[in-house]
């Protein structure tokens, strides 16, 4: 069981939001990150990951847009995410997500101007109870409820100019996160199926901006492979199919027409287990379907590198 918790943790990075210009530009990974299931009691997990994302093409609804209304040449970010979790009991885990934008950049066509923000993003604190667990069938259902806490509610300025909300490291909005996890293992064939659902809902920030609610549905398939002859023998192949819907954002109680999207990604992932406690992982996001309300800049490239370590405080 602990093995699939490892995997679920590693899979979590794939759910980071890939967002578009106009109040959702280069995304907000902590808000969009989901996490692992229920952990063993007295086990502490630390997880560090790096995500790069780049958007340099526009979409109008579900097709490429090549008109005169393009404002940005490119939007990108480099993000360091940090996740910890601790098993309070056999059926309850407490969890903390946080992160730091090394940069969140927009390059404009106007005089090749570049604007960049950096800083701490949001923090998410969650409690995760296990709802149903059948060890014989290798089946588990759990859920989580958490609070989104921005590191700051003040908008950042650079050289005296307030940065656009798209490149603020935090959107300054408090919110709630609900997640559910369903896991089914087939140990004889070393395969696993996961279904993860995550919903994020935000409140109005001091600038009267409300980010659109996010709904993420992810299906995972993983196959564990052992190569006895290899020096690095513990590998896992993972394939994720993810649907992500973001509602329209609003400002001053007015919905922003050109915001919100419906995206589908295919995310191949490779994981390497090092010894008993370490895992490193890499994945890429491949957009297979993108629908945007109006004309928005769309994600093109995204990848994640992660490092995970468990610490057990159980007496042997």
């Amino acid at each position: 069981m602990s093995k699939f918790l490892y995997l679920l943790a590693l899979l979590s990075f794939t759910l980071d939001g890939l967002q578009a210009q106009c109040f959702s530009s280069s995304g907000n990974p902590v808000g969009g990150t989901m996490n692992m299931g229920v952990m063993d009691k007295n086990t502490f997990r630390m997880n560090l990951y790096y995500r790069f994302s780049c958007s340099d093409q526009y979409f109008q609804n579900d097709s490429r847009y090549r008109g005169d209304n393009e404002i940005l040449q490119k939007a990108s970010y480099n993000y360091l995410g940090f996740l910890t979790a601790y098993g309070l009991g056999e059926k309850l885990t407490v969890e903390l997500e946080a992160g730091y934008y090394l940069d969140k950049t927009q390059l404009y066509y106007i005089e090749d101007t570049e604007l960049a923000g950096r800083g701490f993003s949001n923090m998410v604190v969650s409690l995760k109870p296990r709802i149903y667990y059948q060890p014989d069938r290798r089946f588990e259902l759990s859920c989580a409820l958490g609070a989104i806490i921005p590191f700051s509610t003040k908008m950042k300025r650079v050289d005296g100019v307030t940065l656009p909300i798209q490149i603020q490291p935090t959107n300054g909005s408090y919110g709630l996160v609900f997640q559910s996890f369903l896991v089914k293992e087939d140990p004889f064939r070393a395969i696993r199926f996961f279904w993860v659902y995550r919903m994020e809902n935000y409140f109005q920030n001091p600038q009267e901006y409300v980010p659109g609610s996010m709904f993420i549905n992810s299906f995972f398939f993983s196959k564990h492979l052992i190569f006895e002859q290899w020096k690095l023998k513990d590998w896992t192949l993972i394939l994720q199919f993810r649907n992500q819907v973001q509602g329209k954002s609003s400002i001053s109680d007015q919905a922003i027409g050109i915001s919100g999207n419906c995206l589908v990604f295919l995310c191949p992932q490779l994981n390497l287990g090092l010894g008993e406690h370490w895992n490193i992982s890499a994945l890429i996001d491949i957009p297979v379907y993108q629908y945007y309300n109006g004309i928005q800049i769309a994600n093109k490239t995204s990848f994640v590198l992660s490092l995970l370590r468990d610490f057990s405080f159980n007496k042997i």
Partner: protein
Amino acid sequence: MLILLSVLGCEKENDQDPDKKSGGYIESFVSLTSEKDSLLPGESTTITARVKGDNISYIWDATQGDLLGSGNKLTYVALLCDCGKSRITCTATAGSYKISRNLIIYIIDE
């Protein structure tokens, strides 16, 4: 003694205007203007703040759209998702002086 008196004299003069001593003051915020007062989404305009004084810093905010540049002259860009009134606020600061002015730009839906 003469040197001491002249130093004290200078100090006295600066004490009368501590903001000049700390390197800044504002006489008046003369104007905040835009080349265009209405834009289509995707269009841009130049906004200029004219402030009389010394050692002035500028702080800019916009309720919609993006502001590019710094100092007293910026480019304002109306984004594709913007519509309606956008309020641009320029705050000039120097020492303990702080004066703000607003400007409205209309973003017209195509």
